[in-house]
């Protein structure tokens, strides 16, 4: 197990404290809402980074797990009127079930099969939501979910705490012997085999972990929006998450979370620019990825704190 440097712990505490206090300075439900979405994207991005960033097997359908968690919450809370708190564990379980469904047949293979299978699986689920509109509400989706908490600020803090737990858990896993094996799989699968490592097993379990956290994020999102709809399964969501990870610095986990928060904030702040919003956003991303192929957040943090390690 690699030790986490004190400076990283201090940085993490500072960022979480700052995020927690931010709505206090400019008390508005709008800002709290935006921050809640930012933090949920943080959960999605860091969970993507754990599997794909470490093993190098790019998952182009993370929205499958996000949507699975969200729709689980939708069905439970709105249609079956279950206690909203049941959504979180069940969202995790259903997302993991989907990861097994796609992971088992495709993670044995090398090459692009896994990426393509994930992409198609998420697209298929989006279509299925429309086809079985009697049950899923079709385009409209499912409305009227119960909130987990009445006070939006309390909910924001709750989601922020979950992001912190997610990042800490995934970072500890990534720095354990387990994480070492995942990085080895990224390096050379044949060598892993020669080292007696069951590569498929480790890939599937890491996908399950990744899916579980994504599903949790999906359920949290559903209980924030109080509705779910098919675009949650869309490729756009998956690609957005992947871009966030690349901007954060792939394989770093905390970088993905911070980048997700910043990029979500950026899209909100650019609302004032109206139609030019997407231009500015896309151009910023292209410049970052072109000039900083290793990402922005994690490399920057490492450089800033180099002397303190």
């Amino acid at each position: 197990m690699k030790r986490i440097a004190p400076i990283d712990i201090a940085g993490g505490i500072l960022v979480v404290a700052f995020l927690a206090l931010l709505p206090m300075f400019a008390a508005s439900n709008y800002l709290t809402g935006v921050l809640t979405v930012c933090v949920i994207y943080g959960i999605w991005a860091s969970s993507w980074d754990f599997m794909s960033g470490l093993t190098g097997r790019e998952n182009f359908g993370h929205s499958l797990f996000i949507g699975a968690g969200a729709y689980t919450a939708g069905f439970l809370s709105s249609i079956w009127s279950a206690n909203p708190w049941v959504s979180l564990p069940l969202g995790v379980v259903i997302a993991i079930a989907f990861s097994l469904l796609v992971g088992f047949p495709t993670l044995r293979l090398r090459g692009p099969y896994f990426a393509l299978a994930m992409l198609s699986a998420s697209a298929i689920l989006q279509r299925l939501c429309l086809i079985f509109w009697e049950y899923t509400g079709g385009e409209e989706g499912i409305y009227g979910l119960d909130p987990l908490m009445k006070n939006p600020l309390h909910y924001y803090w709750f989601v922020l705490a979950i992001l912190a737990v997610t990042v800490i858990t995934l970072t500890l896993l990534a720095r354990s012997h387990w994480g070492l094996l995942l990085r080895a799989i990224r390096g050379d699968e044949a060598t892993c085999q020669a080292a007696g490592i069951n590569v498929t097993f480790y890939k599937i379990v890491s996908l399950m972990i990744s899916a579980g956290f994504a599903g949790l994020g999906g359920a949290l999102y559903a209980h924030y929006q109080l509705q779910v709809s098919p675009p949650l399964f869309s490729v756009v969501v998956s690609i957005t998450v992947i871009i966030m990870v690349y901007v954060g610095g792939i394989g770093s986990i905390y970088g993905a979370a911070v980048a997700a928060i910043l990029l979500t904030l950026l899209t909100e702040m650019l609302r004032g620019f109206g139609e030019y919003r997407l231009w500015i956003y896309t151009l910023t991303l292209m410049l970052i990825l072109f000039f900083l192929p290793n990402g922005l957040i994690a490399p920057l943090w490492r450089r800033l704190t180099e002397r303190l390690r």
Partner: protein
Amino acid sequence: MTDPLEVHDLLKVDGVTKRFGGLTAVKNASFTLKKGEFTGILGPNGAGKTTLFNILTGFMQPTSGTIHFNGDLVRELAPYKVVNRGMARTFQLTRPFVGMNLLENVLVACMSPRASEDKNKEERASYLLAQVGLGGRDKEPVETLPYGDLRRLEIARALATRPDLLLLDEPFAGLGSSEIEQLAQLIRRLHREENLTILLIEHKLREFMALVSRVIAMNFGEIIAVGPPEEIVKNEKVIEAYIGKTEEAHASA
């Protein structure tokens, strides 16, 4: 029922054939290895040596034939399962985990189920690095390692899985003569002290003959001779495979 005489056969290869389309890379190969033996597979480039290794270790499936290891059929087992039965290999072109240091490279193999009894993985990996002559360099990045040291690292990684049989694929290829001598000493010591059975591929005759006690000579996918080194060097088929026919033979042909 196992034949009592065969109990000591660690590896039993029977009629193994591998075809790639029209090419037969390994043709009806049969041989056995006894526990503690140090055997070499000799043959010119393209004789099917590495293909045979890939088949033994599960990286390729034979077209026909059977392989028994420790009395169990290992054909059609995934490579990692073969390793966990006690058959470890090194690669001719070394394949380290780039972006990791030496210790981490060996640690990966210390995580294999076969090494589950080594509780302190770091300590074990560090010990193995010292065993192969890379002691005290745990934190060095693997990228800067010269070829000879990469070969040692490969051996340390293989040893981490606690093998009964170690398969070395051309460990001396691309090394200078002083590096070869040191590596040969290491391999000899492992064979003697670690109670390892070793099967080694090489086409450098001199180093090879000094190491092994038995030679399996291959040419065009076929085993053409088996015997102690001093007999093999006199074997006509082997000489022909290596040096070609004598001038008279050419003249008369």
